[in-house]
């Protein structure tokens, strides 16, 4: 007993900077033994108020100013002060070095949990997952945010808070359709960004001016132009299209559109990998701290406290529970990673049949492969096991507005497994949860109107706020904007139209 006590990392529930450093060293040692590859990291101790500030800025340490962040802040503050919600124990930033926030109110145990969860779990995911590697530049994001904030503040000074605010409103409302889903964007860098920004300004404006050239042309050329469609291929990234082609935007406005687009793109992988990422982090804090316990480095009290918060986080209330609000990504993700490890280590016959490739394999290698190469949708489609579906008692409900009743079309039984897995994977497909709206055509020779086309998926209509979003687009475009709808059978109908006849000052 005395021998064991002497091996404890630290005691008591009050944290000190030294104790945190000791825990970090120990957790880091265990993580390296498991082969976790992480960015360097930095721990920052903050107060709950600062945590609320961070919430409002989507966790980023620097961000531009906008009323909507104030709204989020007020919302959080209000709910927190009335005790309706606790603050997250941690926020972690996908940057290099990776920054993890520790809240001052946490006990020492909770700080250890946060370190294991964020500084090792999330951190290794950020570094390893292909989406984060491809789409985000962890080493440059903080610099870029600084650039963005300063640039926008400068614009506010030069052009007035109101006009900048209106512009950012419009960009925010298009943000979910302002990401490239398939193309890779070039890495960010503050220096290059600064140097190129001016260059880009001039170049872009020239491009745009060329597009809208109004000099008289030869008849033949005019006829040819009418044949030409613009854009030649429909464009799915509305913000990109606006940035490059909107006729009336000034250079600084284009730059702001670009900034919001870039930042939106940076956050896109987080939306795509919520289940995997949170599950991964939960799996690792669970595994790392349990390993420390097995080594005798933490005591029973520590484990009780840790397990209590851990189970709260990964609890999945059933569908008829008053707290139920969909599937808890922490619960599903954690269970899936645990399950994959089980399939590797103790496969049953069923597992051998379903997962011949990984049953009985080395779990660390399988984990590494799965973490690097998937997103939520494909991860679930690939790895959700029948056993887990039974454990979660999953069932799939079909809601077709042409039918009077809801229909349960698959449950956790032999005939239902595949449909269930497909349906759950589809639920995490951002491509089908966001409406598919693309830039279809611009009337170059005529009234410069912009036509969007909504490709209807599963007969789902657009919601009412979409109208207001169209208004925002019209405001960016500066001329008439139309929204068409193409249904599954190819029928095209005009949904909405926003007429604008705004002219830039000085233009005849």
């Amino acid at each position: 007993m005395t021998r064991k006590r002497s091996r404890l990392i630290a005691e008591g529930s009050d944290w000190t900077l030294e104790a945190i450093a000791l825990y970090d060293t120990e957790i880091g040692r265990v993580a390296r033994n498991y082969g976790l590859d992480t960015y360097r990291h930095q721990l920052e101790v903050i107060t709950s108020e600062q945590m609320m500030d961070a919430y409002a800025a989507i966790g980023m340490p620097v961000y531009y100013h906008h009323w909507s962040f104030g709204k989020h802040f007020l919302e959080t503050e209000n709910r927190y002060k009335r005790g309706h919600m606790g603050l997250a124990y941690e926020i972690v930033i996908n940057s290099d070095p990776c920054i993890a926030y520790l809240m001052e109110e946490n006990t020492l145990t909770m700080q250890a949990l946060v370190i294991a969860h964020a500084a090792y779990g999330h951190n290794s995911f950020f570094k390893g997952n292909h989406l984060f590697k491809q789409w985000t530049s962890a080493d440059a994001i903080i610099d870029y945010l600084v650039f963005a904030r300063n640039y926008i503040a400068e614009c506010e000074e030069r052009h007035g808070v109101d006009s900048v605010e209106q512009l950012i409103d419009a960009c925010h409302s298009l943000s979910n359709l302002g990401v490239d889903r398939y193309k890779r964007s070039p890495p960010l860098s503050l220096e290059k960004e600064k140097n190129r920004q001016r260059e880009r300004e001039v170049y872009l404006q020239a491009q745009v001016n060329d597009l809208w050239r109004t000099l008289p042309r030869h008849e033949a050329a005019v006829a040819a132009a009418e044949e030409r469609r613009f854009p030649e291929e429909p464009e799915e990234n509305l913000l990109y299209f606006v940035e490059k082609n909107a006729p009336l935007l000034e250079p600084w406005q284009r730059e702001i559109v670009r900034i919001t687009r870039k930042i939106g793109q940076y956050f896109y992988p987080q939306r795509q990998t919520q289940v995997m990422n949170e599950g991964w982090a939960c799996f690792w804090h669970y595994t790392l701290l349990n390993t420390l316990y097995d080594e005798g480095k933490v005591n029973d009290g520590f484990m009780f406290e840790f397990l209590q918060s851990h189970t709260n986080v990964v609890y999945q209330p059933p569908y008829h529970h008053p707290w139920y609000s969909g599937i808890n990504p922490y619960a599903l993700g954690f269970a899936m990673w645990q399950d994959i490890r089980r399939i590797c280590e103790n496969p049953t016959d069923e597992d051998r049949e379903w997962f011949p490739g990984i049953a009985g394999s080395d779990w660390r290698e399988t984990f590494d492969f799965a973490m690097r190469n998937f997103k939520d949708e494909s991860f679930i489609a690939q790895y959700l096991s029948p056993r887990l579906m039974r454990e979660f008692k999953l069932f799939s409900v079909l809601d077709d507005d042409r039918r009077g009743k809801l229909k349960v079309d698959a449950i956790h039984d032999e005939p239902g497994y595949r449909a269930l897995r497909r349906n759950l994977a589809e639920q995490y497909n951002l491509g089908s949860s966001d409406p598919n709206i693309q830039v279809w055509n611009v009337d170059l020779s005529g009234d410069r109107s912009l036509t969007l086309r909504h490709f209807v998926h599963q007969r789902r209509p657009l919601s009412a706020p979409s109208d207001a979003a169209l208004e925002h687009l019209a405001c960016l475009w500066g001329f008439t904007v139309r929204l068409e709808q193409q249904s599954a059978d190819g029928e095209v109908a005009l949904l909405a139209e926003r007429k604008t006849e705004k002219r830039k000052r000085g233009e005849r």
Partner: protein
Amino acid sequence: MTVRIVDRRQDSRNKSSINRSRFIRRFKGQIRKAVADAIAKRGIRDLENGEKIGIPGRDISEPHFQHGQGGIRESVHPGNDRFQSGDEMDRPPPGGQGQGSGKASPDGEGIDDFVFTLTRDEFLDIFFDELALPNLVKRQLARIDEYKRVRAGYTQTGVATNINLVRTMRGAAGRRVAVGGPYATRLRSLQAELEQALDEMPADEAEIDRLKREIVHLKARHEAIPFIDPFDLRYSNRIRVPEPSTQAVMFCVMDVSGSMDEAKKQMAKRFFMLLYLFLNRNYEHIEVVFLRHHTVAEEVDEDNFFHSRETGGTIVSSALKLMRDIITERYASSAWNIYCAQASDGDNWNDDSPLCRELLAESILPLVQYFAYIEIADSEPQNLWREYEELAGAYPGLFAMQRITAVSDIYPVFRELFRKRLA
């Protein structure tokens, strides 16, 4: 390799304050309306706190292109306890749990009011904004800028000049007794033992030697107890409290005859609030007397003052007489600063108006610091206004009056008052 830990707790806290003020700036219209509603609910003495404000969630939502209800949806849920494949069921009522997988609640929120708390400063700012107060006055009212330092007990930390000797020495003495107590007791018993031993044994006995040595040792220990220790130090504590000068009484006089409707009363309420706020900045203790009148006047509490409605004619002098009586009875003008605010729609019995002027000129104005009158009416001024106009000419700086149609017209009534204060 040790990790880098940065303690950010001392860094700036209000990173979001800019965003917060942007939010308030943007929704000023809605917030102002909510503040107006809040003022209607508040007492006029209750301007010092922030206010919980609700503005319609619809107005502040951020639109996106999104799917709406309808079409074909598949959703997967956990915790199946009764369903078999092929089961059918009715759609759950909208807004409840069910499909939508968590999207339902954030969506539903759009319809509810967005509720948040304005700080006192933000609240006053909007309140002042409505009253169209000049900036200088706003700043003067919102800021508590005169402080006096008052004693507030003792602390264990402080600067040397604040050491409180009496407390410190008392503490030191107590500590010496407490720490030295066991030594003293032991010494006394040793002393007794020694005397006994000296009586009974020869002087060179080892026991006597041991006792003597122990006594010397204990005495040394006892004397080693420090006379004063940093632990004993006590410092006089002083805190800053806002310093208003003395006491004031504020008379709110309002006509509650049938013609004063709710809107006019609310306007009058702003008028009283503003005076209260001004007095609150300048006086330590304020009493408010509410007098309402139609043909007879009575003293009532605030709730009755604003919310009950009478019918009948109007005799203003009844209220002025009552005020005069109350002043002589309860508020001797040597001890009280007296302020009066009167609101009316201008109706009065013709014969009564000259009487009012007389009452004011002879028995009230000599006693009060300031008398402010607003007439909330669109129609032509009547005889009361004309009688009062004479007074305004005769007592500049003491008597102010204004006809108003909107709350922003109120400020001129107080202009003299604020100017005096600022000078």
